């Protein structure tokens, strides 16, 4: 791995951890725990579009591993890992479709992140609490995925204009 890639990975991992922490401070629906903006997904979205698939996958594992180590525990890591693996796999596959924009990629990533977590809930607890909780998570996951996608599309235009101008 080149120094340039390594530096970029380190920066993105740090950004993902900070965004994940900010995320945990903003309860979207105060009475419903676990509903988050998914800000750290911005980093993975960037990676899907601007880095190699292997690097994106490494970044996801680093993000899940380090944030569980710093702010969570082993069971939490299992939920995060299932959501992360499923959503990153889907986002990488979708990105192979020619001219696909970041909006559907982000929306589908957000939904599959929830699906992965619900699957772990079914295995570890039972399908019953999942049936109650899943609608809340699915609605918020779809909405935040869509929202982040729209915001990220704007950011990507900026990045591409900058790269064209500076020739980076």
């Amino acid at each position, binding site marked *: 791995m080149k120094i340039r890639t390594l530096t970029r990975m380190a920066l993105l991992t740090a950004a993902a951890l900070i965004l994940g922490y900010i995320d945990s401070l903003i309860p979207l629906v105060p009475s419903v725990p676990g509903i988050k903006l998914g800000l750290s997904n911005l980093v993975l979205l960037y990676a899907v579009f601007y880095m190699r698939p292997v690097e994106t996958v490494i970044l996801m594992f680093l993000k899940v591993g380090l944030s569980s180590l710093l*702010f969570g525990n082993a069971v939490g890591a299992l939920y995060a890992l299932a959501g992360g693996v499923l959503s990153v796999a889907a986002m990488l596959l979708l990105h192979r479709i020619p001219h696909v924009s970041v909006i559907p990629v982000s*929306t589908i990533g957000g939904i599959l992140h929830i699906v992965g977590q619900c699957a772990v809930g079914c295995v570890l607890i039972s399908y019953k609490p999942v049936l109650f909780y899943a609608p809340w998570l*699915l609605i918020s996951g779809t909405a935040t995925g869509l929202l982040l996608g729209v915001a990220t599309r704007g950011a990507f235009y900026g990045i591409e204009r900058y790269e064209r101008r500076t020739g980076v």
Partner: protein
Amino acid sequence: MERQGDNRRNVRNWILTGAAIGFAALAVVVCLLLRPKTGAADRFVIRYGDGESLTVPAWETRTIVIRDGKLADEANGEGAENVIHIENGEAWMEQANCPHKECVKQGVLNAETVQSRPLGTWIVCAPHQVYIEYAGGVE
């Protein structure tokens, strides 16, 4: 030509996004249709550790301490600890030392709250794998 290509790309992206939203909406409907009925029940089932469980009649007054996946005599704040209180047909997580204490924030389980709680008839402490279910006797 350029414009036409742009439109085709846009249509593709709209279809993908729409399909994703449609899938999520369908999943929500399926969950709402399949989820268990809620209402007055007669017992609380506490699940912990390696598949163990403890059933307590809803009208019993009792405080249950679970530490590191086992029943404990009293709370001392060590290990992975949850304190559950049951009284007058209600149950709640009185205390817990899990990372975000979300189980404590989930509030009270009773015949009324189960109708509108996000987790329905359950209180879930995911990190400690301690769960309370309001169960039995639902019409």
